[in-house]
């Protein structure tokens, strides 16, 4: 707008002027947010990288040790085992969530409006429940003596199992509250994607004689590729970081069987004298997970997000 009135030669100068015209008010309005972000997010992150090269404790001067902390983590069989556990947990939780969410979205799409609202509200409620409360509920459901699950399974002739008390089952037992809490958000995002598919496609396919399977596998799934990818990656990133459930339900036990990567890091942080190990571990996860989610965000939300 301004450039149209300006002569051709000083156009650049004018543009520079308009570019920074709101400096004062802009920085005043940004100040609180950016200060808080800097002190509590950006500084701790930089600090973490700094600390990771030292032996650091609350009580002593730190000594530079180079990459030793990272090597400690990478050579630690407990860390590797916790990553494997995290992967097992994730490989169960994420596909379960995606499958149920996909069916859920299809169900909601085909029922009446008020039933759809009721379904959406019901599936989202567990999402707003805290991890502590979910843990309390499921611990009691899993109770060895006379718990609900064992009672139910008794009908099928299955003997009582100490679900959380046995290293064989504890990790799998944690996946149920994990799915329960994660289902709501994924389902609603899946539904939004499903409703975005133009109805005409299905009509056309129907004219061509496509059945439910044909429509699902040749229209719905290919067109929802992006959403499914988004949910897969965000689901992976979220569930591999899960540690509140094992922290409250099992404290990582029995015999470390539910010690997911973040729980290991957290427990080392609270018990170790030197924090280098835990911080290096957290940073290693950051590199992988942060990179992964930044890439997916870039891919899907595309230019729109960054074109300030």
């Amino acid at each position, binding site marked *: 707008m301004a450039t149209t009135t300006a002569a051709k030669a000083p156009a650049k100068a004018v543009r520079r002027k*308009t570019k920074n015209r709101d400096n004062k008010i802009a920085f005043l309005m940004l100040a609180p947010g950016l200060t*808080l972000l800097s002190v509590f997010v950006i500084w701790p992150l930089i600090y973490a990288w700094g600390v990771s090269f030292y032996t650091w404790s609350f009580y002593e001067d730190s000594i530079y040790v180079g990459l030793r902390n990272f090597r400690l983590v990478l050579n630690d069989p407990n860390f590797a085992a916790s990553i494997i556990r995290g992967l097992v947990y994730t490989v169960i939780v994420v596909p379960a969530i995606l499958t149920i969410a996909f069916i859920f979205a299809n169900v909601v799409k085909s029922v009446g409006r008020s039933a759809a609202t009721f379904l959406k509200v019901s*599936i989202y409620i567990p999402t707003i429940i805290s991890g502590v409360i979910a843990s309390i509920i499921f611990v009691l459901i899993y109770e060895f003596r006379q718990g609900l699950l064992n009672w139910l399974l008794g009908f099928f002739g299955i003997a009582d199992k100490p679900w959380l008390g046995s290293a064989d089952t504890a990790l799998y037992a944690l996946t149920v509250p994990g799915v329960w809490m994660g289902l709501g958000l994924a389902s609603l995002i899946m539904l939004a994607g499903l409703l975005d598919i133009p109805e005409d496609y299905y009509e056309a396919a129907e004219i061509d004689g496509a059945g439910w399977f044909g429509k699902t596998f040749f229209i719905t799934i290919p067109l929802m590729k992006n959403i499914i990818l988004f949910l897969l990656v965000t689901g992976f990133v979220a569930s591999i970081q899960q540690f509140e459930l094992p922290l409250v339900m099992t404290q990582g036990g029995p015999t470390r069987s539910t010690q997911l990567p973040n729980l290991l890091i957290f427990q080392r942080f609270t018990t170790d004298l030197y924090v280098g190990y835990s911080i290096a571990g957290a940073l290693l996860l950051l590199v992988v997970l942060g990179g992964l989610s930044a890439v997916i965000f870039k891919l899907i939300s595309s230019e729109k997000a960054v074109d300030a």
Partner: protein
Amino acid sequence: MGATGQALREDPAQEITATEMGKVPRWRRRSRGPRGVGPTGRALTYLFGLFIILLSLFPLAWMAISGFKARQEVVRSPFQFFPEVWYVQNYIDILQDPAFVRALLVSFGGALLFALLSLTVNSMAAYAFARLEFAFKRVIWTIALMTMFIPHMAILLTSYIVVTRLGMLNTLWVLILPAAASGLHMFFIRQFYLGIPTAIEEAALVDGATRWQIFTKIFLPQSKPVFVVVGITSFLTFWNGYVWPLMTITEPGSSLTLIQPYLAIFRSERSVEYGMLLAGSTLAAMPVVILFLIFQRHIISGIRISGIK
């Protein structure tokens, strides 16, 4: 055949222009019932719907009802959903524990403060990013966005060291300040602000309004839908928070003990009081469930906006 092919080819272009919000709601255009699915399919659909409701609500219903059970009745075989005798005493007992009531009140007040601070800080930043031209805008915006992708654990530990050094442990500030500014919320509000037409503010600018006036008089009054979503998300984050308060409120029996740590402590210290524990959990879940039910429409459509678009 030919017509069908054409429709298929033409439609995407139309859809792109039509995906903006405010178009005819999709459900209106939908036919009733699953198309091309017989009565069996329809029955299956409803059966699955019922199953989902059961799956998501049963654990909570069980919690609330079991809050009325005597201690030895909560976990028993054969299972019984309703208590033999409705034992209201659990709810009365837990409400008579001053520490519980205090934890509820402090959590509620803290969550309100936190949501308010989060809205203030993030909406101002969002406005600047959406409408103002200033130096290093791109760089600052990119950094703010990047903070969204930092896994919690990567900064949790050093944040703890930072607040310890700042002498903030066991204060209200340590609970409220660190998570108030959020790249995600800035992004979310900014997206909303970008959708507000510029005509009115251009007229206001011509009339000599300042940018601050435009923000408070034009943008804030229109922000309700996005503020509801961000505000409630912030409230929930605070209310449900466990690990951070566990780390930073270290004095046992501190008046700043929030509700989630209270429940966790109750569980480990009085582990046999199942009925009371579930009564307390029910009361602790109630505020967020009620809040969600009141605003569910906004929240659910908020997910639609934030989802991928």
